[in-house]
């Protein structure tokens, strides 16, 4: 099975575990089914792209812990009851965090889910747009996304008219 290079999958994990030669041996015969799906060359390609990420994550973690460790080692540790209270402009704390939130924060979260998902769905189309044009499917290429975005624009206009975007 030929896999598109741009397929986002967990192939790189497989690449770390299995190589082509191992797959060919009888020991891993049962894994041949997987081999159909996870082409080893493709998997190595994925590894090349994503192993550096694992390294960057671990490095970031090490750096953060190093900084924190250093300051824990060097800094003074003279805690007092007053020092450990939360900040309130120099006066005793008034009220806890049982505060009321403006309902708009919730609405923004909902709208975000909608529109960010929209953006995520537009990306694959944008990648393929040029090749669709080259393939002569011009009207289809544009109108397809036009319909998708159009529905969301109708939603935006509705939300706008309903006043969900006003902060007063």
């Amino acid at each position, binding site marked *: 099975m030929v896999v598109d290079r741009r397929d986002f999958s967990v192939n790189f994990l497989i690449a770390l575990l299995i190589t082509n030669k191992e797959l060919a041996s009888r020991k891993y015969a049962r894994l041949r089914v997987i081999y159909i799906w996870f082409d080893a060359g493709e998997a190595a390609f994925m590894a090349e792209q994503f192993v550096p990420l694992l390294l960057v*994550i671990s*490095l*970031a973690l090490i750096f953060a812990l190093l*900084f924190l460790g250093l300051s824990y080692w060097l800094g003074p540790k003279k805690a007092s009851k007053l*020092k450990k209270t939360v900040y309130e402009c120099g006066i005793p704390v008034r009220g806890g965090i049982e505060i009321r939130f403006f309902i708009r924060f919730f609405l923004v979260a909902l709208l975000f889910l909608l529109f960010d998902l929209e953006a995520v769905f537009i990306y694959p189309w*944008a990648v393929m747009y040029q090749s669709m044009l080259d393939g002569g499917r*011009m009207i289809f*290429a544009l109108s397809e996304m036009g319909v998708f975005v159009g529905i969301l624009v109708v939603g*935006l206009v509705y939300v706008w008219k309903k006043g969900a975007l006003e902060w007063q």
Partner: protein
Amino acid sequence: MEIITKLLTETFGLQLDNTGQLVAGGLTMALIMALVMATCAIVWTWAERKVAGFIQSRYGPMRVGKYHGALQPVADMVKILGKEDIIPDDADKPLFVLAPIIIFIASLLPWAAVPFAPGFIASDMDLGLFYIFAVSSGAIVGILMAGWASNNKWALYGAARGAAQMVSYEIPLALATIPVVMRTGSLNMNDIVIGQQGGIFHWNAFHDPFLFVAFMIYFISSIAEVNRGPFDMPETESELVAGYHTEYTGMRFALFFLSEYANLFLVSCIATAVFLGGWNLPVGNAVVLPGLVFLAKAVLLVLIQIWIRWTLPRLRVDQLMHVCWKVLIPLSLLCLLGSGILLMVSGEIAA
């Protein structure tokens, strides 16, 4: 990445198989990235105070170091290392400790896909641009965590505002890059930069009017995305003390601070790579000192952002949301449509 592995195998004579090459090259690259990022973030804290000083007709830091307080950021780091680390009694300890680490990691991760020069990229992944947006929004989780765990109402308000703002501005930020992806036909950062070869009018920002508007949308949203003035609502000193990091002291506070400046530089680097031609020169096809050209453009963008911060007054929350939802998002959707039609028409003419 290729440069590094070549250097390791040929110059230092290391015998490496494929996996070894991958790990050694990736590790060196990641280390360089982390050091560059940390240094830049530290230098920016100095540059910001210096520029602020000049804008307000004063000197800024002058004492530490021979030249214009050049060693001030080093002195600050040393000072911060020696500060006490206070965790309030009422705080939610695990979350409180975890929040700055998450934000720090989220600000370091996107650097893996930033193409500084040909072959000088930690992970030359096909999903580059998408990956950058995906991991950098991890900071929102950290901000909410910090605000909630502090058990301080000012921190919580700041966190809610910060999350609402970052979440809102992420949409125009992502939508503004889509015309570029349409033009390039790839999300790979290297491909995007290479697609802008051949002088200033081949750079995405100056290629056509729609892309120019998209660049402007990206630039405005990126300032809001990194919570800087005039969009620094989450940390309004006059209302919320210091926003979500009110309760943080010492090194934990410094992690927030470092990530903020790293993010400032990151959005400038992405703008450079995606809109301003990356390492390409304004004239001709030649690639001369690619890394320096890239850095020069990114530094210019950072200086513009600092200039904006010290020039414009802070917006109100309602104005902020108005700009995002009623101006930038419809405008970026129009840009999308415009570039789509333009690509179609220009393709027809070319054919």
